[in-house]
């Protein structure tokens, strides 16, 4: 099958393919980061996670329209505003949901799963009523549209590079918040022993609410980043949810390093397979491999042996 290509062509193909894999990796990681906080740290199953991402995407779309209509001069920078707004909107909705729904269900994980699924249906319908059933895409500012010409055959799209940089930035921020800040210590204290954490003066309800909101906010940023590489529809979120959960579970739910490693493995596996097989078979094989490995090693890639 490689007979028709020269060596240079092949190198270019592999480089481009590798880059496509890296973009997929960024996408998976962005999706999974929010869930790694909510599911990995808090143990809450949020099936509406995809809808929080989509909210971020819609906020970005609206911001882009607003800038186009009223502030065309500043359009090239709208994206940074949009991401902040997406974070705030998804975070605020997350806070509301935690208050109205999640906090009643901390002891009933399976029921949380059902309730948040219901929430996802409601959100989908709201998006459809407000934004219409058709998919929407945003206009990118001029500077994001081009690509870097590395060699004659290798082109690297700027928006892809932007998404990757953004992913690195957000991953670092999340890692800092979870592992090095006082806040992160409080979160882990609450997760490990709620009663004790409360007894030593941590406001557990507040920690729960803000952690959940943070996870949702990160999902919002992820959704915002998505608009750069694809369009958004009311049900787009549902397409991602299983992938996202698998990334987090596969990595070992409580480990951020695990999430990164698993996002990398899954995205590389999928993009490599896609080169050889049809898209759907590549997806099937990747998912099958993940499920198979999880059956053999249910704790995921990274986990500690602990006394229960």
């Amino acid at each position, binding site marked *: 099958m490689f007979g028709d290509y020269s060596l240079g062509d092949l190198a270019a193909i592999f480089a481009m393919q590798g880059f496509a894999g890296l973009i997929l990796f960024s996408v998976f990681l962005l999706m999974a980061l929010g869930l790694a906080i909510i599911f990995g740290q808090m143990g809450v199953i949020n099936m509406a996670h995809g809808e929080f991402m989509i909210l971020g995407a819609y906020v970005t779309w609206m911001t882009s329209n607003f800038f186009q209509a009223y502030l065309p001069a500043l359009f090239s920078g709208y994206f940074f505003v949009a991401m902040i707004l997406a974070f705030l909107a998804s975070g605020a909705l997350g806070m509301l949901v935690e208050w109205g729904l999640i906090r009643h269900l901390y002891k009933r994980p399976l029921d949380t799963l*059902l309730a948040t699924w219901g929430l996802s*249906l409601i*959100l989908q319908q709201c998006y459809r009523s407000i934004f219409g059933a058709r998919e929407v895409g945003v206009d990118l500012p001029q500077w994001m549209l081009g690509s870097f010409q590395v060699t004659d055959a290798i082109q690297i799209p700027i928006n892809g590079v932007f998404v990757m940089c953004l992913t690195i930035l957000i991953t670092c921020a999340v890692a800092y918040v979870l592992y090095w800040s006082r806040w992160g210590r409080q979160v882990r204290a609450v997760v490990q022993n709620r009663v004790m954490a409360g007894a030593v003066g941590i406001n557990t309800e507040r920690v729960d609410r803000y952690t959940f909101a943070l996870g949702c906010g990160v999902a919002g940023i992820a959704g915002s980043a998505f608009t750069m590489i694809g369009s958004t529809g009311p049900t787009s979120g549902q397409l991602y949810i299983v992938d996202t959960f698998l990334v987090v579970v596969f990595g070992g739910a409580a480990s951020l390093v695990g999430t990164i490693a698993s996002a990398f493995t899954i995205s590389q596996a999928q993009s490599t397979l896609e080169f050889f097989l049809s898209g759907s078979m590549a997806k*099937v094989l990747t998912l099958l491999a993940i499920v198979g490995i999880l059956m053999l090693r249910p704790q995921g890639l990274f986990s500690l042996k602990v006394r229960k």
Partner: protein
Amino acid sequence: MFDNPRFANRSELLGIAVLALLLLAILPLTLDVFRLNLVAKYLTYSFVAIGLVLCWGCGGVLSLGQGVFFGLGGYCMAMFLKLEASSAANTKIQSTPGIPDFMDWNQITALPFLWQPFHSLTFTIVAILVVPAIFALIVGAAMFKRRVGGVYFAIITQAIAAILTILIVGQQGYTGGINGITDLRTLKGWDIRTDHAKFVLYFVEVACLFACIFAAQFIRRSKLGRILVAMRDKEDRVRFSGYSVANFKTFAFCAAAVFAAVGGALFTLEVGFMSPSFVGIVPSIEMVIYTAVGGRLSILGAVYGTLLVNAAKTSFSESFPQLWLLGLGALFIAVVLAFPNGLAGIWRDHVQPRLSGSGKPGKPWEAIADKTPAE
């Protein structure tokens, strides 16, 4: 006082009798064939719901992949019916006569190996029961032996549902793709599309449903049923009483799978086609809500819950299509937050005490909402 638990207590027997009256007399006498066929379609989901009562309600094992088993049963039946509909005489305009039309469209020139045995009805019926059971056995044994339970099991079963859907849609030539297997006509020469056939099939299905209810009731009333409940409560204690928890969970999962597959096979017969839209994540999780609405511990509740949710879905979708998703979403939330015991709980806590007229409220069910610890 502590004799063997009877098969059913008085109120359960009464419940079964009322359901029999409703399904065998009231509905067939009052509904036209079109509506009756709709009821028949809903009832096929109640097989899945009954399985979930055993597996999730009693055993605490939530599967979000019951659509897989519904689909396996349904596809087995559809393959048989499709082969019968694709006789050489019916398909002589195709470039390869005698194979299903979608294979011909996908340039497949010979019947695939996997399809061959489905010429036999006996094999098909055995396959409907055995294929899902074996599949559930493999998945269940692999997961439960390694103590994967609770939400992890739910997510993995959901992933399996996603995989199977993608596979069916992707392998168009072998499965009929996104459209599924359609244009099914006869069962051993008997036209299943006529009104009369639909009427007869309805009663066949109700008979199967009662067989399924009795089987589920038998399981729940046996010591195995009590062990399932015990397991949901204190898994470790059951283990340290000398039971293999994994085996019991696997059994419940397999039983639920077989029930779902029977429902799926009947669905194909009643509705005349099978497609991946009954296999994936969305239908699978919707089937859970039927059980939740009925009351996750109540076998009869599962049947009523299924009928009610589907009737609501049909009438909403006819008049306000955009409201249905909102309603369904709200139903998920309401049933979890406000009515964890569903219709059966409402009946037991509010209706029955009033009917018995004793004035004193019955002993309220404490919320049995799932006690699976987060893992």
